[in-house]
């Protein structure tokens, strides 16, 4: 009996461990959320240009299970999807280019990137960034400036560290200015009730700033913001309470507790991550100040909550802190001033672990950045960690913390209440979720009764594509009427035709194919200050593109290797029993004549206008019971009446496979393949009625960035102006540890500052990022 108990206990523990160790055996919840980051070469474009992009997929660091090897990228305007791409994410990385049509109207557009798997977490998990596209001919740019300038609203919020503002103690306060008023980099003044200035500090570019102060009890304080024209009241200080301060240097956390209370008490300092304690210390809170040091290596990375409680679990103070663990670094060396058409030599200096590599994108461009766009993969990656640790939606994390440096973030977190905000867009299709496209692209759809709207369960759905050989895939709908087809490369850029096998269902039917680019989350296309305050720059960009078009200049070239591996088709049979080519015979008017004269094993009979046929079995010589199945240009059909009119003029080839044929669970009482000269299958919708079709957009090769060189005085074209705003774009550069990577390119004729950005991911899924400005004079 004891042995049985032990056996049952061990078995259950083994099974549960197995689920954690091998999440592939579990369910959706065992797979970590995927994330995508997209880097575009610029944020501002003129219609008629190319947009170059690179894209990374990343997961949690320790995850080694299946991952999406296909991703999607869309360019949206407010009303529609303008462009859509399917991308190969085999290495966790992809790059490409998108042509922005001349006819695109001026305005903000949105880049959306996602994988099929990410859809399980809702559209808020998708990567989004805005780009501004100006139509070359729209010089007035009326759309970008609002008719009525919005009120310059301004709100000031105060965030004392540890939540408490205690009189007589040194408090660190974060000030946040929000609203339409441009508070970036402005001075703020702390004044007392007599308007005497006690302190001043400067807000950062995002309107945040912090300072220390020791408030006096019963004194009112105010804050004035340079240019705002009004002052804001400070929160009231308290005479009793606890101030909690946290700081971090390279190896150590320092926690300072200032007590403004009479009676000592036992206290507990706890550090938590995702609500789970990771460190704690009990002590007696009996002096005015207590300092505690904690080795940084003892704490995990991410968002930590420092919480101070006293006896009886009374909450006294708390604050959040973002602990950044060691991250790889890269820097860039090289001079910063260049002449026109001069060669630029820069060197990437990596600080990576011995077995760690990085894949980075390098861009050199005019510095125009749209506010509120994801800044770089390091910030994006950090915001993902913050969202995860705080249990908030990613776009909330980005909205609140998006562009802050770690230091600014920790200032902001000083007053962050951490109240969990669970607003998640949960609107999803009712269904069984989305599959991970780890090996193949998946096309999905739904079959339903068009009259009752009820899903059709367990019906067989057939997939064909027009081809010169018979191909067929089939699957069954599930309890939600859904079906899914994983597609090999054979289906690249082919039309897909879906039908329902009448042997599995004969009633009213309709098939709807899932459009992967059907978004429900709205897109705010209202241009903000970062756009309308740069009208001059936009006009200049429009002129540049006009000049480039006039001179027929394009800084792109076709890739060297344009071939794709194509998989074998899913053949219904390898070789037909009989093949008849009509060109070898005298022309005949219709199928009935053709069969009578050329195909004796295929017998067509008519009852009035109703035609039916039988085949004579190639093995037994007997008539095969039941009617054969017809394929028109590879698309299945069952109605001979719609095909009977086809004659030698239309038909190129007939394949007669006169056998009782089996394909998986499907049976065919003979198969007739009719291949036409002029795509007669396009009329097939009228034949079957329940057919749905879609174009299967697969991955494709994109044009690459190509810039002129000026090696000698004769190279390049001195007659053509070189007004590039993008000097260099290398989407995929491998950085090895202890190996400096050189970057070389030529400047153009456009003077001014250019921003060199190097960003990407290491093989361990950690982001790297570096920026440097060079000047062309």
């Amino acid at each position: 009996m004891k042995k049985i108990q032990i056996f049952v206990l061990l078995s259950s523990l083994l099974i549960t461990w197995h689920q954690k160790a091998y999440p592939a055996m579990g369910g959706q919840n065992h797979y970590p959320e995927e994330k995508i980051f997209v880097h575009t070469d610029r944020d501002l474009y003129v219609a008629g240009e190319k947009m170059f992009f690179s894209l990374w997929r990343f997961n949690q660091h320790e995850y080694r299970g299946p991952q999406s090897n296909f991703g999607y990228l869309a360019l949206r305007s407010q009303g529609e999807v303008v462009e859509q791409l399917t991308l190969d994410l085999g290495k966790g990385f992809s790059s490409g280019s998108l042509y922005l049509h001349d006819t695109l109207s001026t305005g903000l557009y949105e880049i959306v990137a996602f994988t099929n798997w990410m859809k399980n977490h809702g559209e808020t998990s998708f990567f989004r960034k805005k780009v501004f596209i100006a139509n070359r001919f729209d010089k007035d740019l009326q759309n970008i400036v609002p008719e009525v300038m919005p009120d310059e609203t301004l709100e000031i919020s105060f965030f004392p560290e540890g939540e408490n503002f205690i009189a007589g103690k040194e408090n660190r306060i974060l000030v946040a200015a929000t609203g339409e008023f441009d508070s970036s980099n402005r001075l703020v003044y702390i004044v007392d009730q007599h308007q005497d200035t006690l302190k001043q500090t400067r807000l950062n570019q995002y309107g945040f700033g912090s300072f220390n102060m020791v408030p006096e009890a019963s004194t009112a304080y105010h804050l004035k913001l340079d240019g705002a024209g009004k002052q804001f009241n400070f929160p009231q200080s308290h005479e009793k309470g606890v101030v909690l301060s946290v700081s971090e240097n390279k190896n150590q956390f320092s926690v300072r507790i200032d007590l403004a209370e009479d009676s000592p008490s036992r206290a507990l300092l706890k550090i938590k991550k995702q609500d789970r304690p990771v460190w704690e210390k009990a002590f007696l809170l009996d002096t005015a100040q207590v300092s505690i040091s904690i080795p940084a290596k003892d704490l995990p990375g991410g968002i930590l909550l420092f919480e101070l409680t006293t006896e009886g679990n009374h909450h006294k103070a708390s604050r959040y802190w973002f602990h950044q663990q060691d991250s790889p670094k890269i820097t860039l060396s090289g001079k910063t001033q260049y002449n026109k058409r001069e060669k630029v030599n820069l060197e990437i200096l990596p600080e990576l672990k011995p077995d760690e590599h990085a894949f980075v994108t390098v861009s050199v461009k005019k510095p125009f950045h749209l506010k509120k766009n994801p800044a770089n993969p390091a910030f994006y990656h950090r915001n993902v960690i913050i969202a995860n640790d705080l249990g908030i939606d990613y776009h909330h994390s980005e909205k609140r913390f998006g562009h802050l440096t770690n230091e600014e973030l920790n200032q902001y977190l000083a007053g962050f209440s951490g109240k969990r905000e669970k607003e998640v867009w949960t609107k999803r299709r009712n269904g069984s979720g989305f599959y991970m496209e780890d090996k193949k692209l998946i096309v999905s759809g739904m079959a339903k009764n068009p009259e009752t709207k009820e899903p059709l369960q367990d019906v067989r759905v057939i997939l064909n594509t027009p081809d010169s050989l018979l191909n067929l895939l089939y699957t069954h709908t599930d309890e939600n009427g859904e079906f899914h087809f994983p597609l090999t490369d054979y289906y690249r850029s082919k039309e897909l035709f879906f039908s329902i096998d009448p042997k599995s269902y004969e009633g009213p039917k309709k098939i709807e194919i899932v459009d992967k680019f059907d978004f429900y989350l709205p897109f705010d296309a209202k241009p903000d200050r970062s756009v309308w305050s740069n009208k001059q720059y936009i006009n200049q960009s429009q002129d540049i593109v006009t000049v480039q078009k006039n001179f027929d200049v394009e800084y792109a070239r076709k890739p060297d290797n344009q071939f794709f591996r194509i998989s074998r088709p899913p053949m219904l049979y390898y070789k037909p029993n009989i093949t008849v080519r009509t060109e070898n015979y005298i022309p005949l008017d219709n199928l009935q004549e053709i069969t009578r004269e050329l195909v004796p094993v295929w017998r067509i009979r008519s009852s009035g206008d109703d035609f039916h046929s039988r085949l004579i079995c190639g093995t037994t010589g007997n008539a095969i019971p039941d009617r054969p199945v017809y394929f028109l240009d590879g698309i299945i059909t069952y109605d001979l009446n719609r095909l009977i009119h086809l004659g030698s003029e239309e038909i190129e080839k007939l394949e007669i496979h006169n056998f009782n044929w089996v394909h998986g669970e499907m049976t065919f009482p003979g198969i007739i393949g009719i291949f036409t000269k002029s795509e007669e299958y396009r009329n097939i919708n009228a034949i079957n009625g329940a057919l749905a079709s879609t174009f299967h957009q697969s991955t494709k090769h994109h044009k690459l960035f190509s810039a002129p060189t000026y090696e000698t005085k004769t190279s390049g074209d001195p007659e053509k102006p070189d007004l590039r705003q993008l000097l260099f774009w290398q989407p995929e550069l491998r950085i090895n540890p202890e190996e400096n990577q050189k970057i070389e390119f030529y400047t153009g004729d456009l003077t001014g500052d250019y921003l060199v950005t190097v960003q990407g991911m290491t093989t361990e899924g950690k982001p790297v990022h570096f920026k440097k400005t060079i000047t062309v004079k």
Partner: protein
Amino acid sequence: MFIIAKKSYLTAIVFILCLMTTLPAFSANKHEPLLLDFEARLSGEVFTFHMQADGSQYLFENWVKGDVSFISGKSLKDQSFRYNGYLDELIWLHPSFYKPVKADKYQIESFTLYPPGGDTLIFENISFKPRFESDSLHFFAQKLYTGDISLVAYRQIKRTGETLESIGPRLVARPKIEPEPVYYLILPDDQVHEVRRLNRRSLYRIFSDERRAIREGFRREGLRINNERDLIKAVGIIDEILEKI
């Protein structure tokens, strides 16, 4: 009695607790599985060939478990097959209709049979022109030995004569069919030689340049080639010798 009852009670509690820890692992989740791929589909003609013969058309009379690999790279596992040596066709027992299906030969790259209590048999769909023959051959060949040189067997079942049988007043002739395997050696340069007789001389004729070394090798092993097993052993010896040369 009370102690026994208490023990059973405790066992039941432990069991239920353990079961509860595994429930999340096995609970039905509407959102799994998340990885999707199709099983390969086997095509073929419903097999209706009948022959009243003296002897069996099949390598194994009973259905045998096996796997099949297709030229597409996919494979289908754990199906029931019979290899028909008379027609050189793989016959598949359809798992839903329970009808025999003659598999579409040209879509098959190889198949494996797992006869109960016996060795695993691997067959490959091969096509070649034997040396000194005018016609090409295409059949399912069983791999007997694989090395730098390979030995394969064509498990053909041939008509070897007739058997006369009295059925009532009539005398009925039935074809007599028997296994008559043919062995082929495939050399590193893809030349294919038929092993016409099961003896050493046949092999000396094929490997005339290495005759002496091979003869020595056979002598060392005391090998005489009387049956298929001996042939396999002999080919193994030749392979080792050729590797050293």
